[in-house]
């Protein structure tokens, strides 16, 4: 592991890409290994229309939104305290939750 600055990539679903000019991924600079909370704060500053759809104003990730850190959904790791290494790809993916019509 390195403490060197680097980048993380955030891949977005179509529904969020429309809020950043159609971009399906965003690249964020980080100072080194960072908490997921810090990265989502960064996302909120960089792309507020995306950030507030991922987290509510308390900072909680919305119920039917999943944030994968690499291959693992963050809730199966340490949630917002999950450490994210430079070079990691984050995926924002809405839940499969269409059963109510």
């Amino acid at each position, binding site marked *: 592991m390195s403490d060197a600055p680097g980048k993380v990539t955030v891949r977005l679903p179509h529904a969020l890409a429309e809020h950043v000019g159609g971009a399906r991924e965003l690249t964020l600079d980080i100072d080194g290994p960072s908490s997921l909370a810090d990265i989502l704060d960064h996302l909120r500053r960089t792309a507020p229309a995306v950030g*507030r759809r991922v987290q*509510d104003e308390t900072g909680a990730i919305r119920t039917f939104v999943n944030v994968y850190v690499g291959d693992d959904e963050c809730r199966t790791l340490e949630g917002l305290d999950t450490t994210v290494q430079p070079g990691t790809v984050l995926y924002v993916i809405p839940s499969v939750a269409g059963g109510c019509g």
Partner: protein
Amino acid sequence: MRIAIGTRKGLWTARGDDSGWAVSQPIRTMAEFASVAWMPRGDGRPPRLLVGARSWFWGPSVLTSDDDGATWSEPESGAIAFPADAGVAVERIWNLTPDPREEDVVWAGCEPHSLWRSVDGGGHFELNSALWEHPHRPEWHPGAGGAAIHTIVPRADGSVLVAMSTGGVYRSADGASGWVPANRGIRVDFQPEEYPEFNQCVHRIAVDGVDGSLVYAQNHGGVYRSKDSGDSWQFISAGLPKDFGFVVLAHPTKGGTAWVVPIDPETMFPPEGRLRLWRTDDAGDTWREVGQGLPDDHYASVLRDAAHVIEHDDDAAIAFGTRNGCVFASLDGGTTFSEVVSGLPDVLSVRISA
């Protein structure tokens, strides 16, 4: 006439009159629209359409459209959000009320119980801190639909009335501070104390079009009237087929005239399936059934924000929607109705505009 129709899954607009209605294609289908509003704009421009949307995935938003829903605006950071130190998030925007007293002022009632005000036509809302910090707030409870301020009435004298489920009616002399409960005389049947100071389950309130101190309330258990701006209330349900319902509308220009839509609380259907309005012309002393053209075999309710009345041709235009996706309109003060549309999702909110 324009009608905005917010449903559990999508938004529609309708344009037309007695000769027929043209209904739009669904707009923004991946959200529910608990609140809609038309805000008048001067200089012959079409009214601004405001909507309180909630995506099941991405949360709540207030959006505005100045072209009948063709294009939409929303600030990047969102129009409505609690300050960081509040520790809660907006769950649902239950009501949007343009203030008839001030151009570009819009009020919002949200879940959890909170009142908001915008001075830029719905672009950004500020939390009413006096009501948010009210000592009664920890004792307000969610009704079946949620913990919401659902009715906001800005009045000509500068005061504002709000109603919430369950919390009851509150009044502020200036709309900013000094919120006091205004529920004396309204009985509750869901707790031992029958006449509490607050926590009544009010479903909707409406202020008389002529006498600003005359207020009507459709409560969970009965229809009430106040002749003193909510200081005291009298039960006025005698003569109605059921005293339960969600809707009360006051005629914009005829004093003492109001309508309710009785619902059987056991079935949540209109009594005997007859979907009708009941009208009073004497401030609730007597009631009569109206609504020629409405169905006799209708098995769905009408929700509180799914009915609206405006002044029209020296009388009133009324539009309302039902939980089985029908919308009806009357351009003769509720005497006769025609169907605007059917087959929509559960109708949550309806607003009509010239």
